[in-house]
């Protein structure tokens, strides 16, 4: 098992803020909009440095999405920022008609996704956002795993012509990917080559997949670990090649089982290469109040759950 280390834990939302801040300096067409959550989204630096390109819209997310769509007409590249719940479910029709169907170059940037929002509870812990967004034709859906990768993804999506959903979160997680990484939309990242099982993980579950890989290695199980930061378009080749090699798969994500990464991979493999799969995800349930760690444990999204899923799927090979 390849050894991964980190010097500090950082929140992915700060990676977004850092990326946006850099874009502000390098790309004069980048504009940003926020619905009264500038601090939470870490958009303060951009707002301070580029007040003429920052639009505070107040608590009016539907209007924010519409304004963002309009700003593209005239060549701007708008980045909208609010919590994942208010970035997707609350404004689904606005995104569907004014952004996706209209083919507008809007970047919908969403923080506080999933259970790790913590104490605010289920009203704010959206676990359906990846599914909602990936169903929209033409929408790119990205869920990076740490600060460095979120920063790189933020910078990369400005150069992609078309709508993008970028999902990140609130808790601090190990910042282990390279600070100078090149982020390629739709390209899976091989973290560890293995032979017995493949673990496909996204977002906050990527580090947990690495922890699970170490535990499995200690018991003589060789896990291939792949970071799927882009849920859509899915890196079909990477998924199929790895499944061919290991012949069993575990998926891991901080999202509902319905509509998430596991669902995308199962759909692909069912069509191309039927393979036993186990999914580590929230199973048709809302979240609740608690600390992020407590919630990840209660809802079965820890390294131990990935190990259990691996043991189960190995028996189905």
């Amino acid at each position, binding site marked *: 098992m390849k050894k991964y280390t980190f010097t500090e834990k950082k929140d992915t939302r700060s990676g977004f803020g850092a990326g946006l801040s850099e874009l502000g300096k390098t790309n004069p067409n980048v504009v940003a909009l926020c619905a009264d959550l500038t601090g939470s989204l870490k958009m303060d630096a951009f707002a301070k440095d580029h007040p*003429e390109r920052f*639009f505070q819209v107040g608590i009016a997310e539907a209007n924010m*999405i*519409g*304004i963002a769509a*309009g700003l593209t*007409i005239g060549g*701007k590249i708008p980045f909208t920022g609010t919590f994942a719940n208010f970035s997707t479910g609350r404004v689904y029709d606005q995104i569907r008609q004014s952004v996706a169907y*209209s083919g507008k170059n809007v970047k919908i940037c969403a923080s506080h996704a999933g259970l790790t929002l913590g104490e605010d509870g289920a009203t704010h812990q959206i676990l359906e956002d990846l599914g909602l967004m990936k169903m929209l034709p033409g929408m790119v859906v990205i869920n990076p795993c740490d600060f460095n990768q979120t920063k790189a993804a933020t910078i990369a999506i400005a150069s992609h012509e078309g709508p993008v959903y970028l999902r990140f979160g609130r808790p601090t997680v190990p910042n282990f990917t390279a600070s100078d990484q090149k982020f390629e939309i739709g390209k899976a990242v091989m973290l560890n080559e293995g032979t017995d099982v493949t673990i496909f993980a996204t977002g906050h579950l990527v580090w947990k997949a690495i922890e699970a890989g170490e535990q499995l290695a200690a018991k003589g199980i060789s896990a291939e670990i792949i970071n799927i930061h882009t849920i859509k378009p899915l890196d079909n080749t990477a998924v199929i090649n790895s499944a061919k090699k290991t012949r069993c798969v575990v998926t891991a994500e901080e999202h509902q089982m319905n509509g998430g990464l596991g669902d995308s991979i199962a759909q692909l493999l069912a069509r191309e290469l039927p393979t036993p799969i186990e999914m580590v995800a929230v199973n048709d349930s809302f979240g609740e109040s608690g600390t992020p760690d407590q919630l990840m444990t209660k809802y079965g999204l820890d390294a131990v759950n990935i190990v259990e899923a691996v043991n189960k799927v190995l028996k189905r090979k």
Partner: protein
Amino acid sequence: MASTAELEKIVSQVRRDIVRQVHAVNSGHPGGSLGCAEYFVSLYFEIMKHNSAKFSMDGINEDVFFLSNGHISPVFYSVLAHSGYFPVKELATFRKLNTRLQGHPTTHEHLPGVRIASGSLGQGMSVAIGAALAKKLNKDNSIVYTLHGDGELQEGQIWEAAMYAAAKKVDNLICTVDMNGQQIDGSTDQVLPMGSLRAKFEAFGWDVLDLEKGNDIASVVTTLKKAKEHTGKGQPVMILMKTEMGNGVDFMMGSHKWHGVAPNDEQLAQALNQNAETLGDY
């Protein structure tokens, strides 16, 4: 500068196009389309500075228009075609398979003249604000126009947008509400009375103009010109335009019943008899 008589001739042809498009596919929305014929003709043939020969999505240094109540696509398509955005004969493809003239306007099929999809109501004002803000960033002094239905104002997003436009002084924006007083289930007063829209928009901080005769081309042109003079003064401009749904076709006027119903063969003949062919049918 077109004369009133010249503009009226275009209106007559646009009305024919509307009923013919809707009749041909036995679907679409003739009532609201007919009521807004004078508005569209005034805007595209007299008021807006626009380049129909070379459509550009960004519309830099051009006035741009957004139709928020997308269901009145027949009038929009007719006026875009006669303005030169695409061949008039393409109106024959309205709502048919593989057409660029979808039931509700869209950018998805790349129809020149359309800059946003609309149909799901209440979104156009927000989009227009975005385009107006982009113009300000680009130091582009041209104007952004929108049209809305009065029933559409029941959507909450309109009021989010109305609050923003006034608060942030989006003063290169002229919105118009088609006050025909009708919506699908009946009159707006029966369905959901909206009280004084003038008082509401003024309270939100808009510069509000009344257009009592929205089916009188001279009045429409005068009011739109006046609205242009009101831009650049720190407030968005709202025109409350009274129209008659189904205007120009006597049996369609004064009722919500022709909101989304196509005329039969006999009714089509009757409608065409009331509106002379002036520019040639497609």
